[in-house]
């Protein structure tokens, strides 16, 4: 079933890629823990991905829709969430003298963005806008595979393509030229659980984190879905038999 869904998605997605800019490659198809009817969150991976996000990506990208308190869903304790939140400064106010002030974050706060608004971000990034990543996995066709392919897909431009100063070649990005430098290098992050932090590993962990950030309800949804489908199959079966029995009397 999943194969057909993937095939269908590719069929529907293909034109977008074909027309978007000539040589955009289809994302590499990887296996993810969250794939399929029985998909689950790989929580250790998500925690590692959070660490990669905080140490590498958060310099430019925000995840402004993720609240600190929701991190308890990926295996952090309340105390850990509290102390993680407190590491951030959050703007609050006005106070009694009418001034805005900074205060340490609380679990009820959301991740603060690195730039106050899009214009400030563009000014700091030479005109390019580092997107907020809260929904990136849902905002791209085959999002998880796309993000993974993009992060691991940097290589030298092929013959005939000149890469302007400040841009980089990435065949998975629309147009082939992206303003983001390759963000992941082997060993860039030291994982607390001891996993080897190769660029590929970090990319996978970040994708797991971003998938959770975009769809925190996924596990509950799929679990509920399995139960609902089983119930409906049984109920429909009963109604089918009931229908046959009642109609056996007609003509």
């Amino acid at each position: 079933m999943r194969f057909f869904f993937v095939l269908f998605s590719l069929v529907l997605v293909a034109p977008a890629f074909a027309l978007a800019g000539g040589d955009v490659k289809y994302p590499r198809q990887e296996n993810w823990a969250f794939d399929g009817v029985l998909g689950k969150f790989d929580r250790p991976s998500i925690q590692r991905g959070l660490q990669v996000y905080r140490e590498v990506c958060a310099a430019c990208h925000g995840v402004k829709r993720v609240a600190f308190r929701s991190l308890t869903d990926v295996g952090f304790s309340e105390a850990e969430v509290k102390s993680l939140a407190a590491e951030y400064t959050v703007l609050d106010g006005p106070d009694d003298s009418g001034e805005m002030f900074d205060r340490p974050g609380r679990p009820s706060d959301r991740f603060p963005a690195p730039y106050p608004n899009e214009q400030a971000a563009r000014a700091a990034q030479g005109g390019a806008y580092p997107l907020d990543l809260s929904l990136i996995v849902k905002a791209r066709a085959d999002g998880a595979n796309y993000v993974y392919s993009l992060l691991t897909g940097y290589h030298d431009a092929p013959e005939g393509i000149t890469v302007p100063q400040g841009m980089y070649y990435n065949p998975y990005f629309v147009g082939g030229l992206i303003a983001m430098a390759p963000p992941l290098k082997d060993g860039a992050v030291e994982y607390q659980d001891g996993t080897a932090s190769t660029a590929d590993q970090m990319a996978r962990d970040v994708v797991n984190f971003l998938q959770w950030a975009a769809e925190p309800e996924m596990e509950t949804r799929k679990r509920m879905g399995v139960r609902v489908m089983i119930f409906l199959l049984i109920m429909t079966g009963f109604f089918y038999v009931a229908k046959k029995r009642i109609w056996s009397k007609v003509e």
Partner: protein
Amino acid sequence: MSHDSSSPDSERRDFIILTAQAMGALGAAAVIWPFVNSMNPSADVLALSSTEVDISPIAPGQEIKVMWRGKPVFIRHRTPEDIAAAEAVSLTELRDPQTDAERVKKGKEQWLVMVGVCTHLGCIPLGNLAGDYRGWFCPCHGSHYDTAGRIRKGPAPTNLVVPPFEFLSDTKVKIG
């Protein structure tokens, strides 16, 4: 529905029909619950259901007002006179009998934490020794509360509500 209800065939048919209907009803009920529950407080509202307050800047005889769950909460640092006056009142005088001890935390009787909403019709009472009982006075319909926030005179039926609270430390109180 005309059929002879005696033959085993029709009994089996009835069972099937009955089960199908029961499952249908069960399914409908199971769908209704998420719908109804969606109107309950959402996760972000629940996250703000408790608030921590730093009480170190409040001197004896001072009181502050903080917001909690959309309502004002009075936090008063009571003087020994306030406490003595509250403890001296006999329960028979009170419309809503409560001892002073029941309304504060043991060992921290100087801290009075109450929801600042008059139990009559919901206005915010004035503090700072207002009213005939040197506590709070509600200007809307003239309810007088004493130094423990208990109703003494006026139309309010019950004492000012003490919310669930605890001391995280000597200088920090968590309400809710």
